[in-house]
């Protein structure tokens, strides 16, 4: 797996300013070869700007972008060996599907017959062979999406950039395409840089995820890292659902920390680098890592009153008001396994945390 360490795209201290507005604040990222890498963040966080800088549609105000070690800032988009799948596909309306897919190869100087042959293979890969002679407007959204993918893959780019390619599709199709994209990435071995605001997309497909907000990188890691060990408030809140409790840290011992809630109730949790004793920070704990009981299981158990139970299909979500704290959400898996029981609204219950579930956040 030494190949893993080859860096495909190296973004070094890249800054993007539009006049007085800073869209990207000194971002550094090393994207590995053969990796499915996702830039995740809410709209306006700078993720698309960064992608467009890699593609060459936006220039870099400061810093540099390197492709397999080569500085590419001076190259115009048509000289960069990267291809893009655009958000609204941007298929050429006057060309057939086959002409669309072979366009890139023809521009690279491949003989027309050879380019068409390769384009045909690409259409096979995305299962659109029978639509080769149609115009894009005669295809459904999902089919157009596949044509856009085939067109971008045909020149066999070193890096494929995908700008929210699934956002225009309906939910079912989006889920199928997630799986297909991942498959195609694995088959072709091309580095994918995928931009999305959909955390589920990011978590299910990516090898690594970079969470961005307000033009800055918030956290970089694999899906589990990002979800289970969020670094700060933004990441904990943006990815999935979480309970945030205001705590004061009493002491830190290695990977564990002791802290207490406003009312004085003591809690043990995972320490986070940069948060020391005396800090007044937030603690994050995912609802599915909490469970309810009649009686306290440990000193740490939090006493509260169940307010509502909400059925959400796979889980039942219980809203609990703590005796000396805020409202918390507890998720109980909707299965018969274990001795999980549902507490009726109005009953008193104790919230217990799995060990390692609670984690301090840098604010």
């Amino acid at each position, binding site marked *: 797996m030494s190949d893993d360490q080859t860096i495909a795209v190296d973004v070094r201290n890249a800054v993007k300013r539009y006049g007085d507005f800073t869209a990207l604040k000194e971002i550094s990222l090393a994207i590995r070869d053969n990796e499915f890498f996702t830039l995740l963040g809410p709209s306006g966080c700078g993720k698309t700007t960064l992608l467009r800088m890699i593609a060459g549609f936006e220039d870099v105000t400061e810093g540099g972008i390197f492709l397999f070690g080569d500085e590419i800032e001076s190259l*115009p988009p*048509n000289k960069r060996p990267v291809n893009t799948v655009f958000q609204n596909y941007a298929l050429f309306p006057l060309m057939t599907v086959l002409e669309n897919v072979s366009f890139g190869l023809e521009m690279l100087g491949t003989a027309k017959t050879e380019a068409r042959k390769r384009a045909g293979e690409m259409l096979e890969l995305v299962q659109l062979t029978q639509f080769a002679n149609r115009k894009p407007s005669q295809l459904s959204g999902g089919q157009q999406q596949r044509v856009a993918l085939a067109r971008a893959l045909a020149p066999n780019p070193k890096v494929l950039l995908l700008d929210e390619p699934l956002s225009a599709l309906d939910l079912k199709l989006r889920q199928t395409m997630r799986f297909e994209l991942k498959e195609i990435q694995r088959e072709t071995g091309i580095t994918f840089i995928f931009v999305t605001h959909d955390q589920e997309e990011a978590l299910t497909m990516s090898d690594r995820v970079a969470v961005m907000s307000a033009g800055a990188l918030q956290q970089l890691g694999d899906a589990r890292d990002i979800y289970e060990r969020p670094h700060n408030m933004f990441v904990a809140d943006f990815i999935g659902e979480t309970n945030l409790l205001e705590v004061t840290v009493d002491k830190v011992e290695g990977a564990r920390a002791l802290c207490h809630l406003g009312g004085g109730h003591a809690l043990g949790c995972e320490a986070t680098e940069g948060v020391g004793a005396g800090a007044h920070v937030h603690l994050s704990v995912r609802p599915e890592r909490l469970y309810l009981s009649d009686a306290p299981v440990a000193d740490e158990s939090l006493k509260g009153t169940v307010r509502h139970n909400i059925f959400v299909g796979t889980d039942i979500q219980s809203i609990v008001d703590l005796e000396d704290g805020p409202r918390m959400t507890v998720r109980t898996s909707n299965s018969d396994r274990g001795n999980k029981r549902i507490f009726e609204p109005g009953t008193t219950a104790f919230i217990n945390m799995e060990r390692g579930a609670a984690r301090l956040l840098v604010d």
Partner: protein
Amino acid sequence: MAGGAASGGSARSDTYKEARYWLLAPSWVVLIFVVLIPVLMMLIYSFLTKEFRGGVIWEFSLDAYDQFFCSRGLFGDEPCSIEWTYINIFWRSIWQAGAATLLSLVIGFPTAYFIATRPERVRPVWVFLITIPYWVNLLIRTVSMKFMLRDNGPLNDMLLATGIIDDPLRIVNTNFAVQLGLFYSYLPFMVLPIYASVERYNFTLSEAAADLYASKWVTLRRILIPAVKPGVIAGCILVFVPSLGSFLAPDLLGGAKNFMIGSLIEEQFKGNAGNWPFGAAASMILLTAVLIILVIFARQQARAQKAVN
């Protein structure tokens, strides 16, 4: 009450039908009185006999068409050989109008592209600026154009002063002056339709082409121009057709040598020297030529449109 409801429904659809005829009435009035009747009058006049001090005698005659196409010698008693005078004028008109259209396209396309790529707020301002000169009467604009271009006019003065030329350029009374005049007369008709189609153009397509290794030139030629072609064709028609029949620019800027068909027709109806049937016949020939050209363009446009959808 089911029956009542049903009859109410049919009554309403009758009302719609009636209303549709009435609402279309203004367009029928326009078509009949502004297009159909004048054209029919011209058609009929072209087959009548001329009255010497203008006007017509109501007597069927092919003389007007004969005069346009046939040369019958000094005394008009020889067999028909082709009369080139008017065909040449006609040909020159097509050529001049074509050159003016090309000039408008070469200048109008970049102008339209420029306006369409400005920020959305300022685009109407640019369009407005383009149309400002056209608030002035065409005759006055053409005369001022002549003033600008004449031997001791501002253009030549400037060129002489900067030392680019030693003798004034003789522009007035040339074909080129007529082309410039026509170009200036009808430029907005080229700019506006092209602007409208460039504005609708999805510029992400140009990015996609660049992303797929196409140079700027190839992107322009293979992606942008095909996409805005309907606007280009519309602009060309809108400049070519009025240029072909124009008489102001050729009269004022071209002089006697650069006579165009519009001037020929104008003369037939002016004062007492005219020949109404001949003017009407020349008009019908011009109309037929324009129609043929329009049909060819319209077919191409329909094909381009079909390809987009």
